[in-house]
Structures are given as C-alpha cells and as structure tokens.
C-alpha cells in the first residue's frame, strides 16, 4: 500500500538573497512498508520527523532523496497526484482548520463533490460515511457546535466519503480531551477492522498505539524501533531516551520486575497487569 525507499528530506532555510542559510535533515533514510489493511502507529517526540513523514505519504512534501510509493505510484509523478490523494486521505491535527462546510453533511460531501461524482452517489457516500463514524445524528448541525472529538470524526467522515484505501491521521487527538481522544481512536480502529481501510496513525500518546498491529518509533528523522506494541513497550528505558514514555501500567510492571517480581515484559493494560500480578502471587503460594 505504502512504501518508502531511503526517504530523506531536508528543510532548507534561505536568506533574502536566496543563499542557503542552514539545512536541517528532518528525515534520514526512512524505509517503511505498509501492507493493505494494516493499522500502523508512528510514534515520536516533538521534532522527531513524524509529521514530515506523514506529509510525504500524501505528496504534500517531496523527498529530497529516495522515493515514496502509494499503491505503486511514485509521489513525484505529478500526473498521478490526484490518484495518490484519492488513495491516501489525510486527517490533520486541528479540527477547526479542516472543516469548511456550514453544516456537517455539506462538509462531508465536499470531497466527493470535488471528485466529480454524481449527486445521488455523493449523498449515498455521505450517509454511509456519517454512519461509519457515528455522526448521523448531527448531520444537519453546524460543525462549530460540535466538540473537538466530534469535529475530528466529521473530518474522518469527509475523508471516508472519498473512499480512500488508506487514511493517514497526523496527531488527530493532540487538541482533544480524553473522551474525544477515545472517540477518534475507536473510530479509526473500527474503520480498519470493518472496512479494511489501511490506517497510519501518527501520535505521541502511548495509550493510543496499544491497538495498532505494528508500531514504528522515530527519533531524529530515523526509524529507531519497529515491532508490535508489546515488543516496543518492553523497551521502557530506550523509549525514555527518545523523549517518549510508556503507559503507567507498563512502567509499574517494569519497576516491579526490577525488584525481582516475575512479570512478563510489555504489559499494556490494567486488566492484563492485574491478572499477571495475581498469577505471580499465587505461584508463590503454590511453592510454599
């Protein structure tokens, strides 16, 4: 679905005469491959290059070196630009910057309308997309009356109405409260499971990547770790060195492990922790 080969990108700053003042390497030989139907999370601190990476997947930025393929199409091929953006839709961080319609259903219909789709089919797509994100009830409301989480779901519906094969969410929850964050992540997860849409979720919230099939960790423009959430979160100290963290329950299990209590690495949820801790305790009683 998406593949990058030795992708590097430089931000170049120029002075008033156009001479190069400084070059910052934001991406450094990134090689990633995402299969159709995958749910991949890209984790990284502020300034790690994760948003720059996301912008390459939708041909908003072009590689300085290397290449990016979306469904086999190189993003540098200008003739394919529309196809690429139809294949991979993007949801941005700030809900207020990406909603343009005065009522919800108009906003969702804006994308397909621009694709030149017949009116009747636009409405079908709008109905379906709103249903998928659970916003049918609000279809005739003004978007500015919605909460942040609801606005992001409308933004996702707007992308879904264009029937992309892949959705890229670039820190979709950074400006939301915990309830809104859960809504958006749940919506993304459902689209992935029920519709088979490939999802690439860029975030720095650890709790959000637990659901992903695969996690890619970026630091200083490079891919530094790749694996399942469990594999990634068993590396507590390494993650901290990348200015990241682990969920509190993972940190607690790690701390207890250091103190000699046998808990498996990479515990991800409260329930799992409780089961493993009780198991460790009862193993003891069995010995005695």
């Amino acid at each position, binding site marked *: 679905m998406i593949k990058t080969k030795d992708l590097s990108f430089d931000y170049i700053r120029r002075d008033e005469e156009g001479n190069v003042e400084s070059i910052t390497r934001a991406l450094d030989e990134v090689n990633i491959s995402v299969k159709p139907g995958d749910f991949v999370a890209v984790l990284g601190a502020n300034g790690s290059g994760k948003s720059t990476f996301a912008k390459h997947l939708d041909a908003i930025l072009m590689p300085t070196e290397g290449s990016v393929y979306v469904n086999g199409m190189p993003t540098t091929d200008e003739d394919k630009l529309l196809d690429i953006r139809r294949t991979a839709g993007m949801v941005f961080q700030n809900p207020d910057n990406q909603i343009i319609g005065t009522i919800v259903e108009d906003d969702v219909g804006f994308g397909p309308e621009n694709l030149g789709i017949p009116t009747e089919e636009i409405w079908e797509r709008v109905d379906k997309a709103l249903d998928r994100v659970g916003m049918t009830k609000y279809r005739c409301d003004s978007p500015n009356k919605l909460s942040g989480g609801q606005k992001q779901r409308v933004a996702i519906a707007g992308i879904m109405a264009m029937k992309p094969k892949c959705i890229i969410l670039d820190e979709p929850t950074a400006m939301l409260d915990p309830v809104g964050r859960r809504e958006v992540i749940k919506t993304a997860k459902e689209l992935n499971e029920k519709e088979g849409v490939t999802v690439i979720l860029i975030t720095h919230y650890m709790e959000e990547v637990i659901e992903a099939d695969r996690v890619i960790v970026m630091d200083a423009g490079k891919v530094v770790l790749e694996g399942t959430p469990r594999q990634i979160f068993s590396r507590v100290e390494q993650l901290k060195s990348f200015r990241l*963290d682990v969920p509190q329950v993972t940190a607690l299990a790690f701390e207890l492990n250091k103190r000699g209590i046998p808990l498996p690495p990479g515990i991800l949820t409260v329930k799992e922790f409780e089961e493993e801790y009780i198991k460790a305790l009862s193993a003891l009683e069995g010995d005695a």
Partner: protein
Amino acid sequence: MSIIFDHVTHKYEAGTTMEKPALKDINLVINDGEFIGLIGHTGSGKSTLIQHMNGLLKPTEGTVYVDGEDICGKGYSLKSLRSRVGLVFQYPEHQLFESSVLLDVEFGPKNMGLTQLEIQYRAFEALKSVGIGDDLIDASPFELSGGQKRRVAIAGVLAMKPKVLILDEPTAGLDPAGRDEILGLIRRIHEESGITVILVSHSMEDVANYVDRIIVMNDAKVVLEGPPKTVFANCDALESIGLSVPQVTRISADLKNLGLPVRPDSITIEEAADELAALYKRLH
C-alpha cells in the same frame, strides 16, 4: 492572596433564548500558596471558572473576592488585578508576537508602567526561572522549538510577578519528556516563589504527582474536591463522568476489592510499586 467564590453562577448570553449556564452556584476557597489541579472535561466550566479569577468574566450572580475585595465592586482596579493574577492561556506560544524573546517577555511589565531597569531585571529573572539561557534572548520567538516557545510565554506572565499563576492546559501538544519538563518547571516556580498555582488539566496522571489539592468540575459544578488521594478514592464516580483515575490507582483499588491486603489509594508509580513489591515479599 486568597480567592473566594461565593455562590457564583455564570450564564453565557444571559437573558436570551441561547442562555447557557457555565457555572452553577460555585463556592470555593483558594488559599495563599496552594498548588491546585483543576480537572474536568471539555465544556465542564473550567475555563469559565479561571476567567472569573482575574475579572475577564463577571459572575451573573454571586461574588468573587480576591484578597477580601469584591472584584466587581465600584472603583476596583481590574488592571492591577490582572498583573497580580497571571493567566497563561492554552497554546500560549500563539500569543508571542515581538521580534525577540527579551522584548516579548518585557511586554507585560512595560504595560505596568515600571522603570526600564526594573522591566529588564524582571524579564531576565523570568527567563532564567523558566530555563531560557542568554544565548536565546535575542532570537526571534518564532525560531524556537515548541517547548521553548511555551516557556517564553510562561516567562512573559511571570515577569509581571503575579501572586497567582493560572495555567490552562500547559502541556497540551507536548511530547512526554516536554510534558515532564514543563510540569517540573511549574513545581519549581511554586516551591521557590511560594505563589499560588492553579493548573488546569484533562489528565489525572499529570496532576497526581504535583498538586496539593484537586478540584473536579462537571456540568458547570464542582463535584469533588480534596487532596489527590481523597479525590482518587472515588474511582467509579470519576469514571462515570468520563474522567479516568491514574492506572496505578485503578489497579490498587481493584486489587483491594479482590481482597488483597494492599492500600487502595496509591497515586504514583513509586507508591504502587512499593506496596505491591512489599506484598509479594511478605508472601515469599
């Protein structure tokens, strides 16, 4: 400097058909030097509440007293109130506008009519206290990283030497290390200067480690209030209004409910680890 809310109600668009209560009969005392965490989800009334503390909003009913004086009283100087109660808004870095870091931080004290010497002194002091070094003071604020910008914005409020510092979601959008840095910075400012700090947050885990007292708002009312341990003891009540307690608190409460002899009120990873390790060793 104490702040007292006496039966404060605030309605947006009062008297119209769009009338919407954002605060309902709030009674609250905030004492001098306290470190308070104000928690609630979007729309619970947190922002409306803090905007009453420096007179940006006025109560529809009831009275707000700062240092014993009614801030809506006749002849009360709101200008002087606002230099004493400093408010750091969400994403404060969006409000940076000057051509250099130093000028930006000087803007607040300059408007207080201080001497140039005092203005500069305060700006340097504030920048030092947020950890912005001399190498950055002449830089454009727009060249800084997100975390640095936010610290400059906080310095701009500190330079006014407020007695009360209110921060609305100061860690929003920062990565975990940046979040810890800002919270650590706020704690240090509180310890060193002894000013009252009110930290508005969505995250229980963020405030659990830092504050003396938590105030929980829901649906325009204060629903819970007290030291972190007391508030988190109400796991289920908090979860029913869409707020979550720290994972370690949930675990210790659950294990207690299962009949294990552990304290149910651990609020930090260290506390929970001590408790659970001790139980394991006792059985060993």
